[in-house]
């Protein structure tokens, strides 16, 4: 453990020198988030799955608390420093809602959401390793489709803080989360509190708040993955000037710069490394091979691709759209939650059937 900690410290100090302190802090933040998610077994897909299948609400309650704590801090912070700090505010639209539902379905198929796929890959899960490159490719393809989606259907950005003021926005956000918590509790069988998940939720909220203070914007995942694929595409001859999304100065600047200075790239790298650190010791006791037929890896790749495309069209995955969206006071986060959950419900049943088939064939 001492060796691994020393390596991380050396890595962070090196990055601080070659790129800047902010980027080093962001990588450190990503590593800590990845470590917490892996060590506490906390995430988004699993809790939704357990609620849909077993009426176990412990994970969802912890998620709601994490979002609520984050909202309580970042909405006033962003309002206090306009221009310097920004929220994850995105438009609501028909394509955004459909995309969130597709993401919800896809994340259940590979048991990994935006953060979950990175954490699972970092912990050596072969299905996540199969899905992740396609997640990145899909995110890039989705970025090419965003202008088409925006031109074909009305896209209306709705920020509760802009519409109602910060105080009311925070109250409405917390009230909304409370109502969902009560609804979830009414369907729950068994206890709703889990000390391990609650600890993870509090840590995650603290890290998400720190992310806003350091980066100036909320935590996200999918932008970085799409950026990596865009850079790879550029390497094989793709011209970014042909893509409306990538000619925008913000995206063009990200494409031109180093991924070591891109916020979501750094936290993504950190998620993989943090999960790897947390899983390293136990990894020798866990088999690499999954007890399934080989074709399920193609399913993982396909749904990885869909995760990427849908998360771009939904303006974020479960992290950038759902978690950071709701916490920032963006209505699109709430739409994401409802649509993503509907998609997840279908995904749980589809995954169970296909997994059963793949398991039988493997025997």
């Amino acid at each position, binding site marked *: 453990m001492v060796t691994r900690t020393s390596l991380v410290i050396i890595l962070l100090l090196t990055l601080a*020198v*070659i*790129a*800047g302190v*902010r*980027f080093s802090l962001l990588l450190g933040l990503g590593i800590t988030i990845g470590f917490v998610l892996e060590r506490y077994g906390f995430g988004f897909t699993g809790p939704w799955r357990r609620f849909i299948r077993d009426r176990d609400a412990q994970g969802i309650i912890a998620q709601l608390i994490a979002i609520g704590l984050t909202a309580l801090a970042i909405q006033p*912070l962003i309002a206090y420093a306009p221009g*310097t*700090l*920004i929220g*994850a505010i*995105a438009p609501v*639209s028909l394509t955004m809602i459909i995309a969130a539902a597709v993401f919800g379905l896809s994340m259940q198929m590979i048991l990994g959401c935006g953060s979950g796929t990175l954490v699972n*890959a970092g*912990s*050596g*899960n072969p299905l996540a*390793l199969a899905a*992740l490159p396609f997640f990145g490719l899909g995110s890039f393809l989705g970025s090419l489709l*965003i*202008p088409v989606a*925006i031109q074909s259907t009305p*896209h209306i*950005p709705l920020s509760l803080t*802009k519409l109602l003021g910060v105080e009311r926005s925070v109250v409405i956000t917390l009230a909304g989360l409370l109502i969902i918590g009560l609804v979830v509790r009414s369907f729950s069988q068994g206890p709703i509190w889990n000390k391990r998940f609650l600890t993870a939720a509090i840590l995650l909220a603290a890290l998400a708040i720190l992310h*806003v203070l*350091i*980066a*100036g*914007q*909320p935590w*996200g995942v999918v*932008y970085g993955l799409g*950026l990596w694929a865009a*850079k790879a595409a550029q390497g094989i001859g793709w011209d970014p000037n042909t893509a*409306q999304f990538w000619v*925008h100065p*913000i*995206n063009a600047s990200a494409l031109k*710069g*180093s*991924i*070591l200075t891109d*916020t*979501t790239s750094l936290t993504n*790298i950190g998620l*993989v*490394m943090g999960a*790897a650190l947390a899983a390293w010791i136990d*990894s*020798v*006791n866990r*088999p*690499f*091979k999954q007890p399934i037929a080989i074709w399920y890896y193609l399913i993982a790749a396909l749904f990885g691709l869909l995760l990427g495309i849908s998360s*771009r069209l939904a303006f*974020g995955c479960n*992290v950038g*759209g759902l978690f*950071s969206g709701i916490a920032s006071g963006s209505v699109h986060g709430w739409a994401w939650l409802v649509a993503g959950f509907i998609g997840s419900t279908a995904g749980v049943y589809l995954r169970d059937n296909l997994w059963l088939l793949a398991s039988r064939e493997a025997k």
Partner: protein
Amino acid sequence: MTRRVGIIIAVSAVVFIVVFDWLLGTPPDPYRAPDPMAFGSTSGASGAICSFAPGAEE
């Protein structure tokens, strides 16, 4: 084969991406680095964020 192989693959892939980007792209310039924290500084968010919707901004 254990999960450790998977961890090594994942971390190697990340290292490959960073090295590939470093060699083919623009290396970071520490002299143009923003302030350590956006909060309280003049160098704020990059805006490169998942919720960014060019053409449908607020």
